[in-house]
């Protein structure tokens, strides 16, 4: 790390600091934990026909959930000050439909391994980040 920073040939340099990425298995594990919470939240509702959890807030972050009509859930863990998360998740849904579902090599229910999808998600995240602070 220091060697990279000291080498003048590396500049201009762009650095990003973040949490180590979760493995796919951990993500599946977390998603399967969220699923019953989502279902119970709609059961516990004082009013009939409530949706599941849409926003989960803690002091340090917010979890936004967008459920599509077909039941696919998009989740984003963001800073509490972030705005426009709803729009971001809708955009991700659009990208999912365009680059995953319309891809003949993609099989349903499997992790998405498609470069075009990844680059578009990344650019969507970056444009959302310009409007605030995002972290997925």
């Amino acid at each position: 790390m220091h060697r990279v920073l000291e080498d003048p040939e590396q500049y201009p340099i762009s650095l990003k600091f973040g949490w180590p990425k979760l493995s796919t298995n951990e993500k599946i594990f977390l998603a399967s934990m969220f699923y019953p919470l989502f279902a119970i939240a709609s059961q516990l509702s004082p009013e009939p026909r409530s949706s599941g959890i849409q926003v989960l807030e803690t002091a340090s972050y917010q979890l936004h959930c967008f459920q599509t009509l077909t039941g696919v859930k998009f989740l984003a863990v963001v800073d509490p000050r972030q705005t426009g998360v709803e729009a971001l998740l809708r955009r991700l849904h659009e990208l999912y439909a365009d680059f995953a579902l319309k891809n003949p090599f993609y099989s349903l229910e499997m992790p998405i391994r498609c470069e075009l999808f990844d680059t578009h998600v990344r650019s969507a995240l970056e444009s959302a980040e310009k409007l605030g602070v995002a972290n997925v």
Partner: protein
Amino acid sequence: MTMSLEEESRLLYGMLFSLKSFSNRISPLDVQEGVQCYTTNKYKMTLFETPTSLKFVCNTDVNAPGVNEMLQKLYTQVYVEYVIRNPECKPAEPITSELFKAKLDETVRMSPAFSSKAA
């Protein structure tokens, strides 16, 4: 939807328990602070947890203001005053005190969340 009070409280407790472990696992930061609230399209659940993991939960309208403050007030000004300082109330038993009930009602009625719903 019909559900007995006991059934509902069991379900709620189980949910809060798993919600807590879920939120700690998914947290992007090291500091682990519990869930404050979640929102659905019909209601909002606000949770206030004391350091001794006593939990105060209130389900409100999505836009109800100051619910967290109200729950903190319930703890400091109602629960501590009328339950902890009441020798008749034993811990881990349902609270039967009438005075507690009256004060609880009064505090909830005074909170901005209550009046904003009536408006």
